[in-house]
């Protein structure tokens, strides 16, 4: 699986080519979902988050990555450490080139699903993070940017 290998390599050495503290991971296969959980967990530990916040952020990342995998035909997740004055946080940016979300309001409503999940993915991920923005146009793919701040 060359794509998977490439993604592992990128995951390990992504820092050089991007903003400091940012890493990008491809979501192409189911195994990538596991890789992403590990990577995001490490990033939350590095950012100094407590156990509950770690779990919130990893769970949100898992939901976003699964959405991109199932609905968006795969995509990429960028994980970055962010600073705003004295506080630090972790920002997840999930991009896919899929069909987009035709009805965003509905997609953020609990119980709404077009796939095999429970319909809590997007709305649930929004509740687990402090800031949450979805940019989606039909046919143009979807970008979700979600941030959680530490010690707020």
């Amino acid at each position: 699986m060359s794509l998977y290998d490439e993604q592992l390599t990128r995951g390990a050495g992504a820092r050089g080519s991007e903003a400091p503290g940012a890493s990008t991971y491809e979501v192409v296969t189911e195994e990538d979902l596991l890789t992403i959980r590990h990577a995001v967990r490490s990033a939350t530990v590095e950012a100094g988050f407590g156990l509950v916040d770690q779990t919130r952020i990893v769970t949100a990342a898992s939901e976003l990555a699964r959405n991109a995998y199932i609905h968006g035909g795969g995509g990429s997740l960028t994980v970055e450490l962010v600073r705003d004055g004295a506080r630090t946080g972790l920002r997840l940016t999930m991009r896919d080139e899929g069909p987009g979300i035709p009805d965003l309001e509905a997609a953020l409503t609990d119980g709404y699903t077009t796939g095999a999940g429970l319909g809590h993915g997007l709305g649930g991920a929004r509740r687990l993070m402090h800031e949450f923005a979805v940019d989606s146009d039909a046919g143009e793919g979807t970008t979700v940017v979600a941030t959680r701040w530490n010690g707020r």
Partner: protein
Amino acid sequence: MSTPYPRDGGVPILRLGDVLVTGLLNELDDKSAVAFTDELTERIVADSARGVLIDISRLELIDSFVARTLMELTTMARLLGARVIVAGMRPAVAITLVELGLRLTGVETALNAEAGLVALGWQRMPQPSGEAPRVSLR
């Protein structure tokens, strides 16, 4: 016939009387979740199990997929005549699940594996009496 360890790196399913005891590890990918469901339902039938204890104290994350797996598994087991108890959820996982909006409807839970086994009808071993301490039996 089901083999004892068909799932790669999974927790074996043990039989204690009419109760099956198993667990989930920190990593539960989609394939493992499906394999786990298949194996457990087969074992419920093969062993005529009346109860199933699933220890999840090692599970570090329950996202909507894992939640769905647990809910479906509980329903399937009930249709096969077995009662499922999910035991040992980590506090951080419980907090996250609620915020995610998932209530694991229909899934019975217990604080830990011991409490789960008691709920399924297993009793603590009677304490050895004072006259015959365990050491003297050696």
